[in-house]
């Protein structure tokens, strides 16, 4: 289950997420709506817009989710009491992974204690950089000292693990300052069991997009990635998805479920969900979401149901980005020596991206083919579309519907 908290103290210059800095007055009503929605879906009712435009109820498997991820926005901007009652509304098993995203500035001992008592097992800290110059360039407020005290607070509260989010390619960043940030993160006490490092991406409409002088250079970003991968691997943090590294056993199960094309429920404004091949999204505006839930209407405004071939291709595209890789038969790269350097064989007949290949993953993904090549073992899938890769047209035939209002 994913719960979206669309409130931030301020918006970072690069951010294109659905979040608001002027709607804190809505927080309590918003949490009420999320709790009502959680109860509804936990009883097995999920309303999704069907391809013909009607809203119908679909049932999902009732029962506690395997993972719960509270993301944003900035979930740590919720009042502690709101955070507690929200988390407590979700039925859980002892083994449920519960991640809360937090801004280092917000993570006090009090907050960490509340999170712990409410069931958090993982905190994802939005650190981005430890270099004040880079942080300023990203439009972020916190300083490096806040990170150390947040980490100490998490440890003292007894939360089992935490992860650090980093961004590379910001203005003012150098190879040295990037190395210093990486080392600083590994030197935290206690050190993180999980790190995500994302290349700064210029999204349309963001303040960053209007300042070309601050846009990242892709070649430099490639070098930064290589530096990060080297340092993380040396510290025992293993890459398991293009932008994610973890100590074995500490991979984020919630995200792994996304990449395995698993099902997940969507709570909150602008949250995305997936159930058995149907992807859907809730209304973007928090007040609309609150209204929809309060009046018993579905907050879902968009959905698509993928045709089988498109769904299969999507599964391969997701798997390619992970350490699991894809079956050799689905990646026909022939004898091209340039492409051959982008992948390596694992023990079990799969092709996995090499470090160089991870940086060029889109190029590799464009060559994926949903149907195994004729030379491979026959399978039910091969029988469906023999010898022809699924084309983008397949997904065009997939049903997609959009509802403007709720």
């Amino acid at each position, binding site marked *: 289950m994913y719960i979206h908290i669309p409130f931030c103290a301020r918006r970072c210059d690069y951010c294109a997420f659905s979040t608001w800095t002027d709607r804190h007055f809505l927080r309590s009503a918003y949490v009420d709506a999320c709790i009502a929605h959680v109860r509804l879906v936990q009883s097995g009712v999920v309303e999704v817009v069907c391809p013909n435009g009607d809203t119908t109820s679909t049932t999902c498997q009732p029962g506690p989710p395997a993972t719960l991820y509270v993301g944003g926005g900035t979930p740590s901007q919720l009042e502690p009491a709101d955070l507690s009652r929200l988390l407590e509304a979700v039925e859980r098993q002892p083994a449920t992974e519960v991640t809360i995203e937090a801004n280092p500035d917000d993570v006090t001992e009090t907050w960490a204690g509340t999170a712990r008592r409410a069931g958090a097992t993982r905190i994802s800290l939005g650190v981005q950089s430890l270099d004040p110059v880079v942080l300023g360039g990203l439009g972020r407020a916190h300083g490096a000292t806040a990170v150390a005290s947040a980490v100490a607070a998490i440890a003292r509260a007894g939360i089992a693990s935490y992860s650090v989010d980093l961004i590379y390619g910001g203005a003012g960043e150098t190879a040295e300052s990037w190395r210093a940030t990486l080392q600083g993160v590994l030197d935290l006490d206690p050190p993180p069991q999980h790190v995500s490092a*994302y290349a*700064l991406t210029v999204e349309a409409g963001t303040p960053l997009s209007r300042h070309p002088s601050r846009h990242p250079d892709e070649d430099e970003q490639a070098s930064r990635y290589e530096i990060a991968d080297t340092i993380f691997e040396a510290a025992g943090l293993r890459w398991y998805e*293009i932008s994610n590294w973890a100590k074995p056993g500490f991979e984020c199960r919630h995200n792994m479920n996304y990449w395995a094309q698993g099902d997940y429920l969507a709570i909150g404004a602008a949250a995305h969900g997936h159930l058995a091949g149907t992807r859907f999204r809730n209304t973007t505006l928090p007040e609309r979401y609150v209204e929809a839930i309060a009046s018993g209407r579905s907050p879902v405004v968009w959905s698509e149901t993928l045709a089988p071939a498109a769904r299969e291709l999507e599964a391969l595209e997701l798997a390619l980005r992970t350490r699991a890789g894809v079956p050799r038969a689905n990646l026909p790269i022939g004898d091209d020596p340039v492409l051959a350097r982008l992948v390596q064989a694992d023990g079990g007949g799969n092709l996995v991206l090499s470090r160089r290949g991870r940086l060029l993953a889109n190029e590799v993904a464009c060559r994926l083919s949903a149907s195994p090549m004729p030379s491979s073992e026959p399978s039910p899938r091969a029988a469906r579309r023999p010898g022809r890769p699924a084309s983008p047209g397949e997904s065009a035939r997939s049903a997609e519907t959009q509802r403007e209002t709720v």
Partner: protein
Amino acid sequence: MIQAGRIRNFSIISHVDHGKSTLSDRILELTHAVDAREMREQFLDSMELERERGITIKAQNVRVHWRDHVLHLIDTPGHVDFGYEVSRSLAACEGVVLLVDASQGIEAQTLANCYLALEHDLEIVAALNKIDLPAADPDRYAGEIEQVLGLPAEGILRISAKTGEGVVELLDEIVSRIPAPRGDAAAPLRALVFDSYYDQYRGVVNAVRVVEGTLRSRSRVRLFQAGSTHEVEEIGIRSPRNEPVDELGPGEVGYLIAGIKAVGEARVGETVTEAARPATEPLEGYQDPKPMVFCGLYPLDGDELPDLRDALEKLQLSDASITFEPETSAALGVGFRCGYLGLLHMDIARERLEREFGLSLIATAPSVEYVAHLTNGSSQRVDNPSAMPAPQQLESIEEPILALTIITPSEYTGTVMDLCQARRGVLGKMQYLSPERLELIYTVPLAEVVVDFFDQLKSRTKGYASLDYEPAGYQPDDLVKVDVLLNGAPVDAFSSIVHKSRSLDYGRKMTAKLRELIPRQLFDVPIQAAIGGRIIARETVKAKRKDVLAKCYGGDITRKRKLLDKQREGKRRMKSIGRVEIPQEAFISALRLEE
């Protein structure tokens, strides 16, 4: 039938913007051919493109009555590309009105057309127009006309087509000075086709001038050049609306509709005679249209190839001077090599294809037709640079030459001469029309004129210089073909024939340009310019290192999938040359920059 002695046939020779259309309008008004209520400004320029560009591409003609006489105003194409058509229009006249802007003086093309009129022994009635303008200086420009053309300054009329001042006198002067046509109405028919256009409903409509004999409706006529026979469906006059008549006698100008399907079957310059009693000789001066400028036209979307073929065939119904044949380019796909009379003709044809037929086209850089002399003693014509034989097979290359006439204010003489010099021009003659204005005659290779010569001339002289040209044969020069290679494979669309002294510069320019336009690949891509096997310039597009989506937004897998779909679709549309994937837009940008 109108008695020949009452007929006066004339054209107006004038520069763009010197007021020809306004004068035509005024004549229609004064002769009551068009009443004021119907008066649409510049009645005769009917084609949309013509009205937009303020020029006349296709000639029209109109019959008006003035006092006891019948005047045929024969409109002429207003651009140097259509010089042959101008000569045929003049061949239908006994005189011309030379119309010159009293604030600007005579321009190159007007001068060239006047010389043409003198060659045809036509009477010239000169008039200075726009005398109502504050900047008008009729005395000065009358002196200039006398100096250049030998027409006595005191005989030059001074009019304002806009206000109507002097137009009545001009009409009287036309009647008194331009000779009446002569011809035997009983002789075997000879009529000149001086214009030909295509009507969607009626097929080809020919503008004809009867020289001898009588053209009758419901007779059978024979076309001398085409060798074909046709039933006359309708003959008539334009006043300016079509009015059918039973017969047209010597000196009369009218239209002929005879079930002709395409203008190419009854070309300008054709002689019409009677099938039952044909004349023994055609009229003089017929020429087949000769394309001078060539370019490849490709549909932006390869699926539109049949539509392009269809559109070209339809265009040819109304424009017999366009030629086209299929051509395949590794870079641009399948399209057509098209030939045109000149640059404006090329632009107009392309615009008509896009506007009237709704096509999106890519055009290659304009080229000319070379003659390649091979070492084995044979020769071949080459209108596409990529088809030029390899240097080791070549003995020499000849290229078409133009005789340029440029009239410029004398203060710009230096910069105009620099331009001509840079374009391999050779100065032939230089004469002052007046202390302030100068006529320069240059011979310049056509290939040097097709690439922005006219724009350069205009910008260097702040728009004051004017240009006319005529073909002046072929000349050999030290020409080489420069190929552009991508990862070792030639890109045909960028092959160019250039002078040897310019080849290095061209090679450097093209490789640098392509380095900017070609997206980075998974490997380093060399871009080379070569003459034969010899590399003269090189650039490299470095391999890309990063092409990955960083993050998926809170479980929004769809966004990521759509981005990949888009990238995959983009790859599908790319052209692959030497294993290098290139979006078509890169070629289009490179071709655009080259212009």
